[in-house]
């Protein structure tokens, strides 16, 4: 045994030492693993502290250690710390192995003796494995300075503006004809009651005019190839049937178009739009979109009113779908949320009882630019309600729908209550389970509503019906609920009910995640790298998330995340190049039979097939070291750096303690 191995066992305060006899483990390693090359074994309160790291550095220099094993937390947390410590002392960082005796031992066991025995085995596995480590050098690749931002809601807008202002190119891709997202549909924003459009549209205009932003609306990302720093993105531009270089956005086509259809997207079914349209007056870009499915010309072959009246001949009925390829270094996903479909809760009567509205419908009712010019009226379009009920937690905090709290509904409902009071003077009932107002100025807003005389009933609404049973209920919607604070069932007759529906992941969130190679939680929200310390990065290098795509959040939080993701990307661009983990697969040409099984299995398209020599080759820049090909190769020709058969098998030997010499009694 020529290697000199140093073993370091961490107490992690009481995290490990509470369940594992740390000193015993270190002593055991020094005695029983000495013949395997262990020359020193120490324990320390916090190995990750600078004193702990210095301990390792000193030993490397003084004892001439050639390998280091640290028994502490998961490599996810401190592998980098200890590798860097080794590098500082002149040891190749990949000759350091971190074994987890916290996540895999102390935190999951309750028997100290057994946990200590397991910690010894895990450590022994690490000692055997580290002997077979080879010094590695990280791969350095350049970072392309352009960035792709997907989704033009408030989070995407914020991210795009921040990066563009720093002087690098941003491509902002949006699926709808205009950017603005859900925020463009709102009237007021809580808790300050700022006009939503007034604070959003200046930002939209900045995006439209920014010299560093290439805005691509009515387009979708269909394919992403490559890796951090060097993504190749395919964007499908849907045909607008309008030549944007000629169009002045004068709006004559929209005015002259003879056909109106119900607008299910922007007006959520409450209003109509023309077939050639801009979703709203302040849309960015200003160019309209022709809705082919409803266009009389595309259905019957005649009409062309828009073309006739267009002063710049910008209408082009021959326009085709366009495929555009972009080269970018980083990607920010800000694709937002869908509103929970409240039809799924039949007892709330949406769709069956006309005066039950969803929250988004109500936003449009309140909006001065909406279908009722901001008048809060019932479904008949004229009657002003005398009493309105607002139901919280619709589809949220419920095992049958979404178990999570949608976090915005309490404040949104308070805002609705205020707007109803302000515009109609109607009696307002808020039906809540718990009032959640944790943001800045939120609790104050709740108190303001209490002062305004809004009724608060604590109880989840059981049902909304039109069946009158008691006097005074005739002709009303009846909300049946237990008022839990008085312990009585109540039936409250109301004119109008608003369902404060929760947020849910986009209907196609899973497919989109697949395109970008990131993962979703069980609920469907995209998973961040670390819930507290890395909330905008993902486990895929170079792909960031911002806004409600990561989980329900309000406008301030979405803006903060958009800016945060932008800062991360700008940091990356500034570095100009990135060091990639050298954990890669490689193919032994002499053993490769050219069967090509690995070619199709590789999730990163990293394996090339050379037809002339009939062997496959791994592109180390594309390879992510996932190991799929290693397991699949029938000839055993592929090995993963850092995960060679030798390393894995010797680790097992160590785990089974076959490396120990029998104790002399």
């Amino acid at each position, binding site marked *: 045994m020529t290697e000199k191995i140093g073993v370091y066992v961490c107490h992690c305060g009481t995290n490990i030492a509470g369940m594992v006899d740390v000193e015993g483990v270190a002593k055991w390693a020094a005695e029983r693993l000495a013949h395997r090359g262990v020359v020193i074994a120490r324990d320390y309160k916090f190995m990750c502290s600078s004193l702990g790291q210095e301990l390792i550095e000193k030993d490397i220099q003084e004892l001439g250690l050639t390998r280091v094993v640290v028994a502490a937390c998961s490599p996810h947390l401190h592998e980098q710390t200890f590798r860097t410590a080794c590098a500082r002392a002149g040891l190749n960082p990949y000759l350091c192995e971190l074994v987890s005796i916290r996540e895999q031992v102390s935190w999951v066991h309750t028997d100290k003796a057994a946990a200590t025995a397991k910690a010894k085995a895990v450590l022994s596995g690490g000692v055997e494995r580290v002997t077979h480590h080879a010094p590695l050098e990280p791969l350095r690749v350049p970072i392309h300075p352009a960035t792709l931002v997907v989704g033009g809601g408030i989070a995407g807008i914020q991210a795009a503006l921040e990066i563009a202002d720093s002087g690098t190119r941003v491509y902002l891709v949006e699926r709808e004809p205009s950017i603005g997202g859900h925020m463009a549909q709102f009237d007021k924003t809580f808790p300050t009651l700022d006009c939503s459009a007034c604070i959003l549209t200046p930002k939209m205009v900045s995006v439209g005019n920014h010299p560093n932003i290439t805005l691509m609306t009515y387009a979708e990302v269909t394919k992403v190839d490559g890796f951090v720093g060097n993504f190749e993105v395919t964007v499908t531009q849907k045909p607008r049937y309008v030549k944007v270089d000629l169009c002045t956005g004068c709006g004559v086509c929209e005015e002259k178009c003879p056909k109106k259809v119900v607008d299910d997207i922007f007006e959520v079914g409450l209003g109509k739009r023309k077939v050639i349209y801009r979703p709203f007056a302040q849309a960015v870009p200003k160019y309209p979109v022709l809705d082919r499915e409803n266009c009389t010309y595309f259905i019957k072959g005649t009409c062309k009113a828009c073309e006739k009246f267009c002063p710049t001949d910008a209408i082009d009925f021959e326009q085709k779908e366009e495929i555009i390829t972009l080269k970018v270094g980083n990607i920010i996903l800000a694709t937002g949320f869908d509103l929970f479909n409240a039809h799924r809760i039949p007892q709330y009567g949406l769709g069956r009882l006309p005066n039950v509205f969803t929250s988004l419908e109500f936003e449009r009712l309140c909006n001065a630019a909406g279908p009722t010019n901001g008048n809060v009226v019932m479904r008949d379009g004229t009657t002003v309600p005398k009493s309105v009920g607002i139901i919280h937690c619709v589809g949220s905090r419920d095992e049958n729908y979404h178990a999570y709290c949608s976090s915005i509904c309490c404040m949104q409902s308070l805002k609705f209550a205020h707007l109803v009071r302000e515009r109609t003077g109607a009696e307002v009932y808020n039906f809540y*389970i718990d009032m959640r107002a944790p943001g800045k100025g939120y609790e104050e807003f709740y108190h303001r509503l209490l002062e305004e005389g809004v009724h608060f009933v604590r109880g*989840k609404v*059981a049902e909304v019906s039109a069946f009158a049973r008691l006097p005074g209920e005739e002709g009303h919607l009846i909300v049946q609920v237990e008022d839990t604070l008085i*312990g009585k069932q109540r039936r409250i007759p109301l004119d109008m009910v608003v369902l404060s529906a929760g947020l849910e992941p986009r209907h196609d969130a899973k497919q989109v995640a697949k395109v970008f190679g990131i993962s979703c939680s069980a609920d469907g929200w995209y998973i961040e790298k670390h819930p507290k310390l890395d909330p905008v990065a993902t486990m895929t290098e170079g792909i960031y998330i911002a806004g409600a795509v990561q989980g329900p959040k309000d406008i301030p939080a979405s803006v903060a995340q958009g800016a945060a993701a932008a800062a991360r990307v700008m940091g990356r661009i500034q570095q100009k190049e990135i060091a990639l983990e050298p954990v890669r697969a490689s193919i032994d040409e002499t053993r490769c039979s050219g069967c090509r099984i690995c070619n199709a299995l590789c999730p990163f398209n990293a394996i090339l097939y050379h037809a002339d020599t009939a062997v496959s080759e791994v592109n180390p820049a594309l390879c992510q070291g996932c190991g799929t090909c290693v397991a699949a190769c029938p000839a055993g020709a592929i090995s993963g750096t850092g995960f060679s058969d030798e390393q894995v098998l010797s680790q097992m030997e160590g785990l089974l303690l076959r490396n120990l010499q029998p104790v002399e009694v």
Partner: protein
Amino acid sequence: MAERLSFSDEVSNLLYAAHGNPLTTCIQCGTCSGTCPVVPYMDHTPRRLIGMITAGLKEEVMASNTYWSCASCYHCNVRCPQGIDIAELMYALKRLSIWRAQHKEGLIGPVFSETFVKTIFKSGRSYEPVLATSYLFTFGVQEFLQEAQTATSLMLKGRLPVLPPRIKRLDNFGRMLRRIIPMGDAK
């Protein structure tokens, strides 16, 4: 015996075969009580009863008529956002109050349940003429005579069996029942 079980543990143990989530997961939202069609007849709403159980208010819970009013419509179960098996909880409390003989005085439910189970023990099947007579006597002669008239006309129309049904191997059946109902010997 080791530590005495808390009342809420005692009730939870009775729910070991139910599919619902533990009572401790109740968020007191009141969906069950808002939904319940017989809440006006209950002294405490189902939500409140769950709160009282977790608070350990044993006497109040045992004296409540809430679970004896339960119509077993299971509507609360369907809507409960926490997936608690509320209807089964009501059954569990019925059983508990009978075993302990701690149920409230003057309720129809306990008497009916007891009579019903006894009939099952004797013949293996429910037999309305016997069930109804033995049960109605506890409420007085007048009540009995009134119901007897109805019963007679039902019987004449062939809507009530004249002879009590019996099942084969009643002994085996009795042993099975005794395993699941710890009533001691059926009287």
